């Protein structure tokens, strides 16, 4: 039964898992960032991911559906999601940061349901599909095993996003303030920094990442209602195993989740569903606070 598992197959499957982990990282790092800085467990994060995918499709179609449309969608769909989140932050979230976590959980859950229905009203229930530009379509042989070109592209984008996020939070002033606010927000406020706008920016950045994830994933899946549910569960699991609010934890969690899934599919296809969740159970049993230091 397992005779077909070759070394090249294993490598190729590892790379597929790695590229899947990139999407997971982009989405869950946004969730983790919001959790870390704002202490908001944002269940509506998945909805923004879904809206990112739908918006990407709409933009690509509006731009004629060609190569230019694709790049336009990749750039502007996350920005559109960021704008939506800015409105949500200024109108709703900014009044709620001091509330209990349970309240926030219920609030964002309600928001997720509302956004889900708004998506259905805006775009309808039909399947949508975004087409990758011709040079990213099909597959190339990697060690003799066919490997989807678009996943190679994701492998390139993931590290760029990770480095960009690292540069932002470590090298820019606003990033440093956001990190400081994550550790001790009273202190940051006390030294005269307008915490409100730092929070708004952190929220928008986190949501931008959700939109980016949605836009990037759209050429590999069909864009449908319900894609919010799957991703939000995965993203929360990743953030939990990585350590709440820890960016590198989100990266570690995504890699574990994505790779355990793809390797599991190869080695034990009938029970593939179990693998990422098994990894989560093992990690949380051994280290309940997550792999890396949680900011909570």
């Amino acid at each position: 039964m397992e005779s077909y598992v070759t070394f090249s197959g294993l490598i190729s499957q590892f790379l597929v898992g790695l590229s899947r982990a990139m999407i997971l990282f982009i989405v869950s790092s946004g969730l983790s960032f919001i959790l870390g800085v704002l202490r908001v467990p944002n269940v509506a994060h998945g909805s923004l991911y879904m809206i990112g995918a739908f918006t990407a499709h709409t933009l690509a179609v509006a731009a004629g559906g060609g190569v230019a449309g694709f790049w336009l969608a990749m750039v502007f769909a996350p920005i559109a999601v960021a704008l939506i989140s800015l409105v949500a932050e200024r109108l709703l979230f900014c009044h709620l940061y001091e509330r209990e976590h349970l309240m926030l959980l219920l609030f964002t859950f309600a928001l997720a349901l509302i956004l889900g229905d708004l998506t259905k009203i805006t775009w309808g229930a039909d399947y949508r599909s975004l087409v990758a530009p011709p040079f990213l379509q099909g597959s190339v042989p990697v060690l003799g095993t066919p490997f989807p070109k678009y996943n190679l592209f994701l492998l390139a984008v993931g590290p760029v996003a990770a480095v960009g996020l690292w540069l932002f939070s470590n090298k820019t002033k606003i990033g440093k303030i956001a990190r400081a606010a994550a550790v001790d927000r009273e202190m940051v406020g006390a030294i005269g920094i307008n915490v409100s706008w730092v929070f708004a920016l952190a929220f928008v950045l986190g949501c931008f990442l959700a939109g980016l994830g949605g836009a990037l994933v759209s050429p590999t899946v069909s864009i449908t209602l319900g894609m919010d549910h799957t991703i939000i569960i995965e993203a929360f699991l990743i953030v939990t195993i990585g350590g709440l609010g820890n960016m590198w934890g989100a990266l570690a969690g995504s890699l574990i989740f994505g790779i355990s899934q793809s390797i599991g599919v190869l080695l034990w296809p009938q029970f593939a569903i179990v693998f990422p969740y098994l990894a989560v159970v093992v990690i949380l049993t051994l280290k309940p606070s997550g792999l890396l230091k949680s900011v909570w």
Partner: protein
Amino acid sequence: MKNEQFFSVGRFLVLAGCLLAMLMPAAAEARDIKIGIVDTYSGPAAVFGNDALNGFKLAVNEINQQGVLGGKIVFTTRDEQFKVDIGLNVAKELVLKENVDVLVGTINSGASMAISEAVAKKEKIPFIVWTAKSENITGKAGHRYVFSTAENTAMAGKSAAVAFAKKPYKKFWIAGDDYEYGHAIADAIWRNLKKIKPEVETIGKTWWKPGEPDLIPYLTAIQTAKPDCIIFATGGASMANVLKAIKTTGMENKIPAWIHTATDHSVLKPLGMNAPEGVMGTIQYHYYYPETAANKKFVADFQAAYGNPPGFPAFNAYTTAQLIAEAFRKAGKIDKEKFIDAMEGLKVDTPVGKVEMRACDHQAVYPMFLGTTKISKEFGGAIAADIITLQGNDVMPTCEEIAEARKQK
């Protein structure tokens, strides 16, 4: 004082009498037939739920111009959210609180089985399954109160097996959604194929959770095993994802694949010119085939009303409405048991010709169309090409087989 009271009692009696008199003819007069619809209107499968609802609405509008037994067909819908427990709850609510005469729906085979067993059978209310395809619904779990106007896994499985038997494939891989429908269709095709061509073998199986968004890791893993052919046992929720992943992984034209309903336009249309070619599919309805006058009229009316051509759920639901109306007319009154008797063996006109509700198992007899996806410039995307028609009676289990299956249960 006493007089006054007497007067008011008298007045009450007169009023009550008047009211009764008003009600009497109303009770004797015809009432509307109430249909309760349980289907999925949220999540990825909503596209099929909406399509079915539109088909039903179109038929009901036509039927209500004449009326049925002097009344109209009215309906109310509930969203099962593709979940068995929710489907069961809303079905109970429709029966117990809304007092519907007939239940119809759903797309989820698991939910359909649950409603059939716990609501239809228990409350003795007719339930017509219109999209869910598990053969168990009218097969081993069938009973007097459940009907199916969907083509089922047994029919699809046999059709595919007949087609595969003519191809040189030996090593098969089965991959699909890990729920009732996925396993039912995989079993059906394998059982039939093994019977016709005993030398075939399955070299592996993959099951993913229904609606799994990213199937690329699954498909790349299957590719390394180099099967001759892949049988995809996926339902509504994963259908579009599979087709997209076939294209993305470059599997198209390299490893042949078969998916029941792959040739459905609601799945192919969003992919446009980028739909994978050469994917085999079976289905009981195409809006562009067969090109009969009745089908053309149905498609034109549907397109005018909803802006899209009808898919197979719309066709199933349209047929369901015709059956309901005809059965009540034949029964002569709104009576659940008489309705069931009238349904058995009933034949109605549909866009693809006469469709019979088989008396022995309550399964609608449809022809099956086997096609292969092919890009058509005229349609701006993929359609089913090289269509082979298999007659319903040739691909359905016989009444004896059904009786045997029910006995075993």
